[in-house]
């Protein structure tokens, strides 16, 4: 493989990983407070559809991004209202809201199938950087994801509200004993996750895979959830996971390892990887528990 091909591959991986990373970082916030949003896949999908539809209709990328973010925020608010405020089952609520969002996306998205609209331009900010400039040079979404990693990691580990947020997920009983407003902290974290999932959806249809088809982003929410499990709610590990995952399941890489694999099966590489990642995460978890015992 030539150096140029490698650069192209890496650039493709970074682009593909961007929405995944943004969504996973948001979900990291929610899971830090002990809330799992199984609706993530649906939230990403509806946001992605609306972001594209608004972008297509208004020819404004900015409005598209804002619309996607607001949809994510709104769906997360509904989820938080039911699952956190009303204390209904997180999994059931997540599945129902997620399925609803996918239903709406596919129904309202019909007129936009196959349409083209403006996409996010790549910004040559990092052109001067040697080696990395070749593939780190991306659209605003990617720069945002870099920034989000830093901000969320800083927030969760270096600020008082962030540390308090993690405490709620670590031991909710003890957090209540300390007089913390646990529900409010959880709702805020879920809203943050929704906002990020909305942006991830927008990144998808405005940048990574521009345009809209039925089930355009199906599965990426589940991959994001898996990466959060793999990264053990640590934003830095989540980032490593997102890139590693995308790299290993990229079509080019899969073909290198399995040159005779039929084309129909290269598409499932992310899901085979998902299983591998789940098994690895479970072994880590078990060995850690054994160490503690």
């Amino acid at each position, binding site marked *: 493989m030539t150096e140029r091909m490698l650069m192209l591959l890496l650039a493709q991986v970074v682009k593909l990983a961007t929405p995944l990373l943004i969504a996973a970082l948001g979900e990291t916030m929610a899971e830090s407070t002990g809330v799992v949003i199984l609706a993530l896949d649906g939230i990403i999908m509806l946001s992605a559809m609306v972001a594209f539809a608004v972008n297509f209709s208004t020819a404004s990328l900015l409005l598209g991004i804002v619309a996607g973010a607001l949809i994510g925020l709104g769906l997360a608010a509904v989820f938080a209202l039911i699952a956190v405020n009303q204390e209904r089952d997180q999994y059931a609520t997540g599945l129902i809201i997620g399925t609803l969002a996918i239903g709406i996306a596919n129904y309202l998205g019909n007129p936009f199938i196959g349409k083209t609209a403006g996409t996010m331009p790549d910004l040559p900010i990092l052109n001067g950087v040697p080696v990395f400039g070749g593939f780190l040079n991306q659209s605003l979404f990617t720069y945002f994801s870099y920034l989000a990693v830093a901000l969320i990691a800083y927030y969760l580990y270096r*600020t*008082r*509200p962030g540390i308090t947020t993690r*405490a709620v997920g*670590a*031991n909710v009983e003890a957090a209540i004993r300390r*007089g913390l407003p646990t529900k409010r902290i959880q709702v805020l974290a879920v809203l943050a996750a929704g906002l990020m999932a909305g942006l991830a959806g927008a990144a998808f249809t405005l940048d990574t895979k521009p345009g809209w088809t039925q089930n355009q982003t199906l599965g990426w929410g589940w991959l994001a959830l898996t990466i959060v499990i793999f990264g053990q709610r640590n934003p830095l590990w989540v980032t490593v996971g997102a890139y590693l995952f995308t790299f290993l399941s990229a079509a080019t890489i899969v073909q290198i390892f399995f040159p005779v694999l039929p084309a129909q099966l290269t598409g499932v590489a992310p899901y085979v990887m998902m299983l591998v990642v789940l098994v690895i995460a479970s072994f880590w978890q078990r060995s850690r528990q054994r160490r503690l015992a």
Partner: protein
Amino acid sequence: MRVELVNITKRFGDLFANNDVSATFEPGQVHGLLGENGAGKSTLMKVLAGWYRPDGGSIRVDGKDVAFHTPQEALAHGIGYVPQDPQDFPPLTVLEHLVVGTPGWAVRRDALVRDLENVNANLGFDLRPSTRIQDLTVGQRLQLAMAQVVVYGAKVIILDEPPMGSGLRDSLQKLAAEGRTVVFITHNIPDAVTLCHRITVLRRGRRVGAVEQPVDQAALVKMMFEEDLPPAGTPPTGSEDIAIDLSNVSSRTDPPLSNINLKVRCGEIVGLAGIEGSGQAPLLSVLAGRDGVTAGARKCHAKHVHLVPAGRLGEGLVDGFNVQEMLALAHSDEVKQGWRLDPGRMVRLAERAISQFYIKGQPRSPSGSLSGGNQQRLMLACVPFDTDLLLLDNPTRGLDVPTAGFIWSWIMEQCERGAGVVVASNELEELWAHASRIVVLERGRIAGEVTPIGGSFERLKELVGGAKGEGE
């Protein structure tokens, strides 16, 4: 700060956890609050620390009446309570633990590290700011909990049954020397004697009295336990057949067991005594084969071993099952009709158990709707009929005298049937009255053994109180 508790009463339903208890804690001293399990020590301190609101009486701090509604309010007034189970956040670090819930955004790391270093220096702690809580030792976790209330400015520090470590005595003396009021909750007489300036003794929710140093341990034993010698019963003697034999058994449980030698014969009742958490539950678990042994040998000759756990709902009983489902689960052979459950036989089995065990409930009553006593009776009804090694963990906890009496007579029946029985209980009197012999555990080891017939109840109390334990 000088804390006065005046005529505190705290009820849970019909149970008086504290009944008209008064106590005074002076600054600059370490106060012991001594009593058996269930004497009301923790409840009294939780009332002081804002966890519970008292049903009667008042709290005075430096002469002023106060009433705290939350632990935070109490802490803001200088009262810091360190609970028995650590209330911390395992994946976080020591420093982060101190930050949780504090107002503002920025973490002033340097200032916090300095605070922590001060606490380390003043109290002889060895906490490092970036250690994760799961990597701390038990003693360090206690240090962290103490450091937290100290950093928050507590003037009164209450320790609820802290794990004893080498440095604890020094730490408490230093806290007191700084002018703080220290209250130390314990059921261990020697610990109280070595650590405290003044000891208040509670028994069954009431204050028995207070003593100052120098203290006579024998006098404390008398105060802590009931005055009268409980009537010795007619315990079963057992046969020659061995139901189970543990030799030199160690386990990786919490707490770990070490060098346990225990033979249980068929037809005898072995009582397990000791302060709570001395390894009774792990030992029962090892006897039942639920936990493996890391050293030694477990030879089980009994064919059907059944453990009745201490927890009722969610442990001994399936939360969500009703009475007849519970019984059908336990005695499936009784209600099986080929592949199916016979509803008629299920109801009849339930009705029989309800009348035999005096369960106040219907076959379709959810097990969660039963009272504690009836749940315990149902758990006994769920013991398979052919059990020949029966293990019970605190079967009478929190139950009234008639129910406890019923439970013991049922246990005796099982014994007469030929089953070997092991009963762990925090009530020495009931073990004294029913057990063939009583094994006392201390920190996962057998501290000694007492036989009620011809034995000395004083000796049992001393063993349980940790005094003059043989250690091995």
